[in-house]
């Protein structure tokens, strides 16, 4: 998206939508006139903003919502949860549209349809307009659409030959009318055939049609709805046209076109020599009114030039206009000038001398309004206000006169002002100068909606430079927050990532210098310099991380609504408590939390919190509680979902898992409660035999686990039967740069995330015991399983023992379980930027991705969990 205005609109709309839904929910708790007004205002603003763009269905829906709010505000409708639901649904549709606009520049057909339907529904249910009013409204909106056209019609769409045809007619005294015809969507049902109808317009010069709605997929098109608009050029009399269109007058707009709008050359501006001589000759002939000589000069040159040229097109126009000399003299002059400058002809002359004394319409309109303002001010009691308004008005009149360069009137007005500056004398002056005949009914013109990415005139908002200055990009909100495009931060993130990796090259170079050349002095310098660079890079990384940190409230804020809707559906009473929503974590982490949390909260509502009767029978408070809590824990963010529902029974879970074949009989007996509870994360495990509509079909807690694992986080369950369940997710605060331990095995190097490395030890081969084909060793009085890394990775090489007969073992902590991995040797740690695999390689789950090392080599990063559990052990 390269349109900063559209980006701004999207950012702002999201803020509004969030506030709207918060207010709607607050209003449910207690009605408050202030909040209602606030709500109305925001919906209104949002509607106004949407009107800047060409999203009519969104505007329509917001308008309906606004009208509905207005009824509530006026007190003719009382606020209820039904109304809240309707508003929330409407805002959901708008929200989807905003997402779609961001993604593809326009809302999808389906959301446009649902917006239209919703708007219609709101109108039908609440806004009972009498049929007459309905048609008035319609007429008004039709009118709006038509007026918009005047500003957006681009005459260059009309091919030259048709423009010429029209101009010829005009030179013979006809008027050129541009007709804009918008057939109703239902016109086919009325037996109309717009296409045929247009082709038979009297004195038709040219016509074109276009679709007024985007049809992303022709197969989805409703062929019984007419969505075609027509633009027609005709030279018939207005009366004749009015007669012809009499049945659809509300759907047409006639605009009289000045002949100069149609006279302009078109074609290739490059190529063909421009003969200075010709230009000079042509000007001379024109001055002398030597028509024959001019015609000859033009014809000769036209024969010599290729017809596609701009130049040739201009010559053809001159040829046409020569026939109507002398009145076309000015046009020809402008065209000769256009040939010289290779630009659009400029018609600076006045068409009629009479016009010179006429005042511009805009000017008249402004002055007329000033008269109105004065008439109203005259009735004011307060002298200060009267004088102030008069001051402002005289200011306006003087400036307007100066603006249209009407010195005569300006001097007159100044005299009046000096001699007798009072309201009455100014009103009188206006009446004298602008008799009522001058006064046309005030019309309100409406802007063309900005077409996505191609606003109307050349004065557009999309030509703001690609990188708007901070002042432009920033939105001044009361807390002076700077809003920055995410892509910019991501770019910073990538750059710092590269810097962090690049700096690692220095120590490597230092070693190389040492090994190859044995120069030690420079080594010290390089190392010192490296530590400086290292510090700066780390600080910078920290700073950028800080920028990316966003509060979890962004995820939490959706929950009041979710809980409200679900508890209604389930007919349960639940109180949601949110704690620590200001806790911050990396944007990606926060975003990744969203889905798992929804799942957990749904689970709590669905399976955790008991029904009303059940709670009463158990002697628990009848309203259940769900707590959503966030807090920091070292470099992790900890999110807890706590409910006081029925809890889980480890025994039950174990039996179920056994029945489903998830665990063996042996495990069934040995498993402790904690391990049993963890079984719920096993794919395909669901505590409910029949999964309810809410918790997703056959989707269990494994979804949560997968999401958390992706971010190298962990998830824990605590549950006490009949008292409730606590599920805690722990995620790293950020994940751009990871810290890995580099190990070597089978002459290859791999990285293991430091998060999962508990310690590195040496284990003597004698101390490795094998039970039932599984290797174990005792480490600090604990039995831990051992694996050969080479075996796990199918590397056909034995592991290397050191001279003391010991293996190097990395002890990994995977979800609380210690496991030893036998490797060949350790190579210290490194900061890396993890690039996840894409495409086919993504199936290699045992590696989470790759990293580029300081010396340019590629390091595979092991995913410990997959390594141990994914390979069937």
């Amino acid at each position, binding site marked *: 998206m390269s349109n*900063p*205005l559209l980006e*701004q*609109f999207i950012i*702002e709309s999201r803020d509004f939508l969030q506030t709207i839904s918060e207010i709607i929910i607050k209003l449910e708790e207690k009605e408050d006139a202030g909040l209602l007004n*606030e709500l109305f*205002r925001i919906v*209104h*603003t949002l*509607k*106004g*903003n949407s*009107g*800047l763009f060409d999203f009519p269905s969104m505007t329509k829906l917001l308008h309906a919502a606004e009208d509905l709010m207005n009824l509530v505000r006026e007190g003719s409708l009382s606020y209820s949860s039904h109304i809240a639901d309707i508003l929330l649904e409407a805002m959901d549709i708008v929200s989807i549209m905003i997402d779609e606009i961001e993604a593809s520049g326009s809302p999808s057909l389906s959301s446009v349809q649902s917006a239209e339907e919703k708007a219609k529904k709101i109108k039908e249910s609440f806004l009972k307009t009498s049929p007459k009013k309905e048609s008035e409204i319609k007429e008004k909106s039709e009118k709006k659409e038509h007026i918009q056209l005047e*500003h957006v019609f681009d005459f260059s769409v009309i091919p030259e030959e048709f423009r010429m045809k029209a101009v010829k007619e005009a030179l013979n005294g006809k008027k050129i009318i541009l007709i804009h015809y918008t057939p109703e969507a239902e016109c086919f049902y009325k037996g109309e055939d717009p296409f045929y109808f247009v082709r038979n317009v009297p004195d038709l010069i040219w016509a074109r049609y276009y679709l007024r709605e985007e049809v992303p997929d022709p197969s989805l098109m409703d062929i019984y709805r007419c969505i075609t608009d027509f633009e027609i050029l005709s030279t018939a009399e207005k009366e004749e046209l009015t007669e012809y269109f009499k049945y659809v007058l509300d759907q047409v707009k006639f605009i009289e076109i000045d002949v100069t709008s149609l006279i302009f050359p078109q074609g290739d501006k490059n190529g063909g020599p421009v003969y200075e001589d010709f230009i000079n000759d042509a000007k001379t002939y024109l001055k002398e009114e030597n028509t024959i000589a001019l015609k000859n000069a033009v014809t000769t040159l036209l024969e010599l030039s290729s017809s596609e040229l701009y130049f040739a097109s201009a010559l053809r126009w001159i040829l046409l206009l020569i026939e109507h000399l002398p009145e076309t003299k000015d046009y020809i002059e402008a065209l000769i000038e256009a040939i010289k400058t290779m630009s659009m002809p400029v018609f600076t002359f006045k068409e009629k001398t009479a016009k010179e004394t006429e005042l*511009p319409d*805009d*000017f008249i309109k*402004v002055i007329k*309004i*000033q008269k*109105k*303002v004065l008439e*109203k*001010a005259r009735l004011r009691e*307060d002298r*200060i*206000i009267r004088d*102030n*308004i008069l*001051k*402002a*008005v005289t*200011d*306006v009149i*003087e*400036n*307007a006169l*100066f*603006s*249209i*360069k009407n010195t005569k009137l300006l001097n007159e007005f100044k005299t009046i002002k000096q001699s007798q500056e009072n309201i009455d004398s100014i009103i009188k002056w206006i009446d004298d100068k602008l008799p009522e005949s001058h006064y046309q009914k005030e019309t*309100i*013109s*409406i*802007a*063309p*909606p900005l077409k996505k990415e191609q606003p*109307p*005139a050349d*004065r*557009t*908002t999309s030509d*703001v430079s690609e990188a708007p200055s901070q002042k*432009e990009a920033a*939105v*001044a909100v*009361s807390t002076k927050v700077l809003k920055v495009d995410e892509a910019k931060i991501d770019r910073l993130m990538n750059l710092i990532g590269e810097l962090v990796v690049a700096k690692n090259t220095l120590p490597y170079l230092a070693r190389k210098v040492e090994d190859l050349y044995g120069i030690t002095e420079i080594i010290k310098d390089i190392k010192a310099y490296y530590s400086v660079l290292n510090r700066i890079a780390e600080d910078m990384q920290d700073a950028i991380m800080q920028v990316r940190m966003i509060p979890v409230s962004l995820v939490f804020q959706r929950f009041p609504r979710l809980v409200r809707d679900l508890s209604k559906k389930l007919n349960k009473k639940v109180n949601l408590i949110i704690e620590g929503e200001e806790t911050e974590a990396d944007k990606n982490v926060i975003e990744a939390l969203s889905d798992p949390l929804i799942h957990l909260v749904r689970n709590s509502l669905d399976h955790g919190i008991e029904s009303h009767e059940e709670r009463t029978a158990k002697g628990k408070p009848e309203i259940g509680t769900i707590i959503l809590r966030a807090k920091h824990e070292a470099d992790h963010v900890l999110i807890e979902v706590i409910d006081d529902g029925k809890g889980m029974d480890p025994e039950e879970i174990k039996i179920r898992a056994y029945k489903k074949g998830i665990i063996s009989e042996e495990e069934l007996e040995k498993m402790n409660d904690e391990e049993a509870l963890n079984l719920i994360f096993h794919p395909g495990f669901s505590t409910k035999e029949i999964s309810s509509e809410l918790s997703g079909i056959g989707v269990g807690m494994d979804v949560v686990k997968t999401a958390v694992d992706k971010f190298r986080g962990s998830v824990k369950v605590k549950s006490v039967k009949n008292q409730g369940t606590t599920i805690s997710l722990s995620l790293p605060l950020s994940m751009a740069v990871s810290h890995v331990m580099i190990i070597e095995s089978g002459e290859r190097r791999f990285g293991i995330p430091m998060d999962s490395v508990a310690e590195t030890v040496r284990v003597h081969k004698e101390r490795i015991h094998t039970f039932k084909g599984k290797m174990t060793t005792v480490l600090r009085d604990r039995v831990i399983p051992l694996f050969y890394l080479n075996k796990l990775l199918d590397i056909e090489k034995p592991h290397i023992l050191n001279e003391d007969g010991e293996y190097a073992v990395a002890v990994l902590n995977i979800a609380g379980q210690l496991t030893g991995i036998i490797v060949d040797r350790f190579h210290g740690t490194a900061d890396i930027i993890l690039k996840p695999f894409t495409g086919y390689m993504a199936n290699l789950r045992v590696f989470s991705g790759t990293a580029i090392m300081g010396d340019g080599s590629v390091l595979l990063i092991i995913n410990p969990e997959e390594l141990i559990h994914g390979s069937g052990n």
Partner: protein
Amino acid sequence: MKKILVVDDAGTVRMYHKKILEDVGFEVDEAVNGLEALEKALINDYDLYIVDINMPKLDGYSFVKKLRSSESVRQSPVIMVTTEAEEKDMHKAYENGANFYIVKPVNPDELIKVCKLFLGETYE
């Protein structure tokens, strides 16, 4: 350089107006509601105010009313901008001492024309 104050609670609209007006060489300052606009009007000398009607804290009507009853602020013309094209809204604007009324969404050419007239810049 003529100075205009654009008053609107919607950043999108402010940005739109600002861009249009700056392109033709006016200096544009912004305020997010009527209250801020009044505060700014006390300190700065604006040649023109372009004011939205529907705003928090202090709406457009009240802004004009307060401006027109102040003795210490320069009495520059006020153009009201609103989505409501109702006759009664227009009258209300004029009653409070506004000098013009434009309906949203604003057509750039229209806005420029009107501003030029109001500020005495050459009108084409």
